């Protein structure tokens, strides 16, 4: 953001993006990425985005981005969602690992990992959560013991997204248990691990709806070169925390996704002939209002970020809001079309719907469960409320035993 971005710059970029998307977005939606076939198609799409120069428009040009700045990046996201383009499958790599490498990585690490990441030749997953440490992330127990110029890793990670298809994992491991006993955030290291290494076992994790978007990863005496450490050994907590703001906050532009979801809901209400039911109107209006409010907030945060302000204090507010809104959108759909609520997605319940609406309906339940999951992952909404009450409102900490 060295030169000021004008409204005209944004609109010019928007027009360029829109034209490219109009030409390139697949006419038929891709099959879900949770199965191999769909995943490969999504990966191919990411390659096409990369070739078009749109893999990460907000990234600095030196790393292969477009230096688009915030407002053009938002315009990109808005156009992307409006065009109905495929779901992005490498967000973890692009928005969690990428910024970490740019900030903490060595030039060698950046050169080694970033180009493949950007082109989606390498899929990365996040290895933070463990079965025993969810909200209390720092209580993690996966061990990495030094052996010459390697670490030997033993332990288990869970909730690694795209885990079943990922090539690499960026994980938090405990390298100094002694230090951790005094202060649990100490003695943790941020380590990148090739999932093809001997001793790694990846087990796709079936979810409540039978899909497998996450995985568990088991490490048994996995040897990892020391040069795969990002940042300082034993100081990985700060490295990891620098990613969490992104996970909690919106990736700017996602308001357009939620507006799409509400448009889908409106189409369902229409297909079910509920357009004159005042209750249905109230409920549809309720979630529509939420998306408008959310959009206003995204623009506010963007203005603040452009002015160089920090967003940490608002990331929790934003996360509680959008996860609740997303839940409300999909829950409302289930409740309003509830005569067949026991068979959500069944095309027989919407005999006159157009294909796009039927497609939305067929995915409704899956999206409902993922909306529920969003209230847990990336710091449960309970943790966010602790943060808001203490850091934003200044209320006292709870006593500890």
């Amino acid at each position, binding site marked *: 953001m060295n030169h000021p971005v004008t409204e005209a710059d944004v609109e010019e970029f928007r027009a360029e993006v829109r034209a490219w998307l109009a030409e390139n977005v697949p006419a038929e939606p891709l099959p879900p990425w949770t199965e191999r076939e769909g995943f490969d198609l999504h990966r191919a799409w990411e390659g096409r985005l990369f070739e078009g120069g749109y893999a990460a428009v907000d990234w600095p040009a030196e790393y292969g981005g477009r230096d688009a700045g915030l407002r053009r990046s938002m315009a990109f996201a808005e156009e992307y969602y409006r065009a109905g383009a495929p779901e992005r499958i490498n967000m973890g790599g692009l928005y969690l690992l990428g910024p970490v490498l740019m900030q903490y990585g060595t030039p060698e690490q950046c050169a080694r990992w970033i180009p493949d990441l950007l082109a989606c030749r390498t899929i990365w997953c996040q290895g933070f959560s463990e079965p025993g440490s*969810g*909200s209390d992330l720092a209580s993690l127990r996966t061990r990495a013991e030094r052996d010459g110029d390697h670490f030997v890793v033993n332990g288990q990670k869970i909730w690694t997204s795209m885990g079943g298809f990922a090539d690499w994992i960026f994980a938090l491991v405990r390298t100094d248990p002694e230090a951790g006993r005094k202060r649990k955030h100490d003695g943790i290291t941020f380590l990148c691990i090739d999932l093809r290494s001997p001793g790694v076992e990846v087990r796709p994790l*079936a979810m409540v709806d039978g899909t497998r978007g996450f995985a568990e990863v088991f490490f048994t005496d996995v040897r990892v070169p020391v040069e795969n450490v990002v940042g300082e050994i034993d100081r990985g907590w700060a490295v990891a925390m620098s990613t969490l703001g992104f996970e909690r906050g919106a990736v700017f532009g996602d308001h357009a996704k939620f507006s799409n979801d509400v448009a889908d809901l409106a189409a369902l209400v229409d297909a079910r002939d509920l357009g004159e039911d005042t209750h249905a109107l109230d409920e549809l209006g309720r979630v529509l209002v939420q998306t408008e409010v959310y959009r206003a907030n995204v623009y506010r945060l963007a203005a603040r970020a452009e002015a160089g302000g920090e967003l940490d204090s608002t990331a929790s507010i934003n996360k509680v809001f959008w996860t609740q809104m997303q839940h409300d959108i999909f829950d409302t759909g289930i409740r309003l079309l509830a005569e067949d609520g*026991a068979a959500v997605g069944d095309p027989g319940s919407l005999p006159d719907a157009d294909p796009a609406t039927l497609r939305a309906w067929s995915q409704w339940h899956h999206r409902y469960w993922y909306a529920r999951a969003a209230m847990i*992952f990336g710091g449960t909404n309970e943790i966010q409320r602790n943060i808001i009450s203490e850091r934003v409102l200044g209320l006292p900490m709870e006593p500890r035993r």
Partner: protein
Amino acid sequence: MTLHDTLDQDRRELVELTDDLLGRHCDLDFLRARIDDGTAHTPGLWSRLAETGLVSALVAEEQGGAGLSPAHLSGVLHSLGRHAVPEPYLETAVLAATVLGALPGPVADTWLPRIAAGDAIVVVRLGELTPLVPYAADADLLLDLADDGAVRAFTADELEVTPVAALDPLRPLARVVLAGAGTEVGDDSAVVARTRTLALAGAACLLAGASQRLLDLTVEYVAVREQFGRPVGSFQAVKHKAADLAVMVDMATAAALSAFDAVDEPDGPRRAAAAKAYAGDAAARANVDALQLHGGIGFTWEYHLHIWLKRAMGLAASYGTTTALRRDLARELLARVAGERRG
């Protein structure tokens, strides 16, 4: 307040018997096997329910049953909900048995003894309450109850049954088209109305039981799961969420059981509709809070919470949604009050 406290001695024993049976023959392994092989109803479990006399409870003694009144079964239904039993108990043993018991004739003579013996699955179609018919694909006979009182029976070969992808795989649903002529069973709008009331109140009992299980699983989990060096269930925000849920589940249980007991009271229909509507609310709350309080593990297929999450959602959408029932009740109240106030 436990279910135990809500029931009298007789019914308590029946519930204990049911719980015991289901604990042995309808455990998690059994339910998982049913999901894996895509069959909810199995002759095996149905026979066990029949052998203990639960299926024939409402059938008259001369037709092989125990001749009990429905009120005896409210706790049993609650238990079936707690165990997520994948069987058409409400449909066959309660609704069909009641309809046929009230409409004597050749159809009843043929089918009641079969029901009592556990040899037949009979389901009911109740107008707008059943746009999708539970267990229709398993049915030997379907009773179609029209609002005007006409009751006709259709054998399996007289039906076109199209299964739909039910949210709850342990409670299959189907669209049904009556393809054959069927047989007249009777014509009695009081019987149809009473069956409707029984369906609402019975679904409320099943639903309250499913919600109770969601609460129980959640309380067990948060009491054990530790984060930040203490049980999650010792955090006040978690405790209060569980407490609010407990209020709803307990009240839903009180309303459901009493409505089922009161089917023959003058205000029985109102109480049944209110109980089902509220049980649907409580189930929705149980669904949201149970999953949120479990955290990630609740989303896994491996953990069993989802069995009850789906049962609760499916039942809430069956036999009248909360929204539809509320509207009917409100209209009835408006008519009553307007009549009184305007003289």
